[in-house]
C-alpha cells in the first residue's frame, strides 16, 4: 500500500531531490516550499509522514512541527538540515521529531527510518482503534502485510480483495478476475507478481490483439531461457478474444498440446469484464473456460465500492502523469475536489478515473486541483451535448437488444444476424 508523504523545504532544488527520492521509493509525495501553505495542506490531507527542512525564512522546522502536531500529533516528522548543533538535535528529538538527518543525506538511512516511523505510527493507531475491525469499515485504512498498489486498500472492499488475492497467490493452474468494464487488470496482476520475491517467477500478458500460439510459445520459451521456472500467462479481456484464441487459452490453462511439455510450470490468469453467467449464455465464454474459471474466482471491486481509495488513486495518477510530463511540481487535489471524486459513481471505473485525471492535467491546473476544475471536467464528461447523450443511450440499448437476442438464440451469432437481418460481422463487433 503506498504511503503519502508531505515534503517541506524552501530550497526548490533540495525539495525536488527529496521528492524524487521518495517517489522512486513509491511514496505519494506532496512537495511544498512555503511552511504556511504546508500547514494548510497538512490540515486538509491525511499524510503518513512529514519531512521538513529546519532552517526556513518564515518559520523554523521546529515551529512548523509544533503547528502541525497540534492538529495531528500521531503523524511522524523527519527533520533535514544542513547543520545542527547536537543540543538542537537533542531538543528536536525531545519535542517529538522522529529522525534528524544532516545534509548530505544518506538516502538509505532516510528511507529506512521513514519505513520504521510509519510502521510504528500505524501500530499505535491500530492499537488505539481497537485493532483489526478496521478492514470492514469504509472509511478506515487497512494494514496489509504485503505490497499492493493497484488499490490503496483504504476501504473494506479493496482491502478484502487484496487479501483474497494474497491468500490465493499459490493457485495451482488458474485464477479468474471478474469485474466490471474499465478495471485496471494489468496493474492488479502486477501486484500479484509482486507477491513473489523469486526472480524465477514471470508474468506474460496477452490480449485479443496479441495472442497466437506462436507468440505465446515464443514468450514462454524466452522466459524459460532467462531463468523463469514458473510462467503465469495473463489473458486480458478474455471475452473479446476470438474463438480460436479462447481455445488456445483453454489449452494453455490445461497445459495441453504445444503447452504440454515445456519444462516449466505454466499458470493462467483470466481477466473478464462483465457478468460471467451472461457471457456464458451469450456464447462469449465457452463451457471449458466457464468451468475452468470457477476454480479460483475473485470479484474485482468497482470503484464505487472503494470511494475512500478514489482520492488516493487520483493523486497517484497525478504523480504518474506529472512525472511523464516532467512537470516542475506535482499538483495536488484540494480536499473538496477529492471529496467530489469520492462521491462520483465512476461507472467506467479506473479507465474513467484515469481519463478524467488526464483531462484535468491537460489543461494545466497549477499546483492545486480545485473543486471547480474537477467539477467542470466531470460535467464535461457526463454532460456532452444532448445529441451525444442520446446517441450513447441508443447505442447501449442496441447492444443490449443484440445481447438479449443472442442469449435467446443460444449464443449463435449467425442466427442472431439473421434475426436482425444484418451481417454476422456486425453482430460480432457489437457483442465485443
Amino acid at each position, binding site marked *: 500500500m503506498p504511503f503519502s508523504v508531505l515534503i517541506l523545504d524552501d530550497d526548490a532544488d533540495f525539495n525536488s531531490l527529496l521528492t524524487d527520492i521518495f517517489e522512486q521509493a513509491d511514496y505519494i509525495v506532496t512537495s511544498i516550499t512555503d511552511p504556511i501553505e504546508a500547514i494548510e495542506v497538512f490540515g486538509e490531507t491525511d499524510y503518513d509522514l512529514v519531512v521538513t527542512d529546519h532552517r526556513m525564512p518564515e518559520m523554523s522546522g521546529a515551529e512548523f512541527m509544533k503547528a502541525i502536531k497540534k492538529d495531528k500529533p500521531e503523524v511522524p516528522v523527519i527533520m533535514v538540515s544542513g547543520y545542527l548543533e547536537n543540543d538542537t538535535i537533542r531538543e528536536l528529538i525531545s519535542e517529538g521529531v522522529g529522525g534528524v538527518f544532516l545534509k548530505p543525506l544518506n538516502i538509505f538511512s532516510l528511507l529506512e527510518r521513514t519505513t520504521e516511523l510509519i510502521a510504528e505510527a500505524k501500530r499505535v493507531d491500530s492499537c488505539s482503534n481497537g485493532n483489526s475491525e478496521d478492514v470492514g469499515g469504509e472509511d478506515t485504512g487497512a494494514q496489509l502485510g504485503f505490497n499492493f498498489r493497484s488499490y490503496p486498500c483504504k476501504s473494506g472492499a479493496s482491502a478484502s480483495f487484496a487479501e483474497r488475492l494474497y491468500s490465493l497467490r499459490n493457485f495451482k493452474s488458474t485464477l479468474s478476475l471478474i469485474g466490471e468494464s474499465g478495471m485496471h487488470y494489468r496493474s492488479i496482476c502486477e501486484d500479484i507478481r509482486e507477491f513473489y520475491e523469486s526472480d524465477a517467477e514471470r508474468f506474460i500478458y496477452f490480449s485479443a490483439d496479441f495472442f497466437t500460439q506462436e507468440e505465446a510459445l515464443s514468450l514462454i520459451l524466452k522466459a524459460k531461457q532467462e531463468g523463469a521456472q514458473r510462467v503465469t500467462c495473463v489473458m486480458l479481456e478474455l471475452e473479446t478474444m476470438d474463438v480460436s484464441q479462447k481455445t488456445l487459452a483453454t489449452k494453455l490453462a490445461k497445459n495441453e498440446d504445444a503447452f504440454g511439455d515445456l519444462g516449466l510450470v505454466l499458470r493462467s490468469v483470466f481477466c473478464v469484464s462483465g457478468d460471467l453467467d451472461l457471457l456464458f449464455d451469450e456464447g462469449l465464454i465457452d*463451457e471449458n473456460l466457464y468451468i475452468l474459471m*470457477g476454480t479460483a*474466482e475473485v470479484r474485482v471491486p468497482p470503484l464505487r465500492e472503494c470511494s475512500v481509495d478514489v482520492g488516493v488513486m487520483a493523486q497517484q495518477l497525478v504523480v504518474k502523469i506529472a512525472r511523464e510530463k516532467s512537470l516542475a511540481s506535482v499538483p495536488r487535489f484540494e480536499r473538496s475536489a477529492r471529496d467530489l471524486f469520492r462521491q462520483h459513481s465512476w461507472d467506467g471505473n479506473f479507465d474513467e478515473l484515469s481519463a478524467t485525471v488526464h483531462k484535468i492535467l491537460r489543461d494545466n491546473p497549477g499546483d492545486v486541483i480545485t473543486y471547480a476544475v474537477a467539477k467542470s471536467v466531470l460535467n464535461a464528461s457526463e454532460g456532452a451535448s444532448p445529441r451525444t447523450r442520446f446517441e450513447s443511450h441508443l447505442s447501449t440499448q442496441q447492444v443490449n437488444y443484440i445481447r438479449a437476442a443472442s442469449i435467446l438464440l443460444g449464443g449463435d451469432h449467425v442466427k442472431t444476424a439473421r434475426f436482425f437481418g444484418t451481417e454476422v460481422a456486425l453482430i460480432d463487433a457489437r457483442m465485443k
Partner: protein
Amino acid sequence: MQEHRALILRSNRFLGSSLVDKGLVSTSALEEANGKFMEAIQSSDLKRASILSTLLFDLKTMEEDKLLDYLVDELKLGLVDLNFMELSSLRPMNVDLSLCWASSTVPFDYVEGTYMLATCYYMSAPVIKYWEELLDGRLIWYGTTISSLSRALERIEEIHETEDAAAEDE
C-alpha cells in the same frame, strides 16, 4: 439430460466455488474435479457429471459427513434419508426425472401447497433458484446423501416404468 446441460454446468460450477469458499475442499482438489467433470460433460455422460460425486468417490478429497455437518450446523438445514421415505411418481407434479438427476434434487412429498425437496446441491445457488422458479408453492429443503438420492431416483424410475407398463396394458 442434454436439455439440462447449462444447468448442470452452472450448478456444478457454483457448488465447487462454494465448497472452496467454505473451506470444505481445496482449490487443487477442485481443479482436478473440474477436469474430470468436463470429461464427463464432453463424453455426454451427463449422469456422471457431478463435481460432488467426483470429489467424494473418485478423488476421495472430501468427506460427505463433513458436508452434511456443515449443512446442519451452518445452514440450519434438516437432513432426510430417502431410503425410509415412501416415494411416488413425479408426474402429478409435472417434474421431469432427468431434471432431478441433473440437479441432484428430488421433490419427495407434497402436502397442502408445500413441496418437500431433498438435495445434495443445497450449496449451489442456481439449483435452489431453478426449483424455486419451477414449483408453484412453498418449498421446504432437506439435505441428503448422494447414495440416498440416487437410490430414490432409481426407485422413482421404476415407479414411472410400472406406470408406463400399466398404461400400455390398458
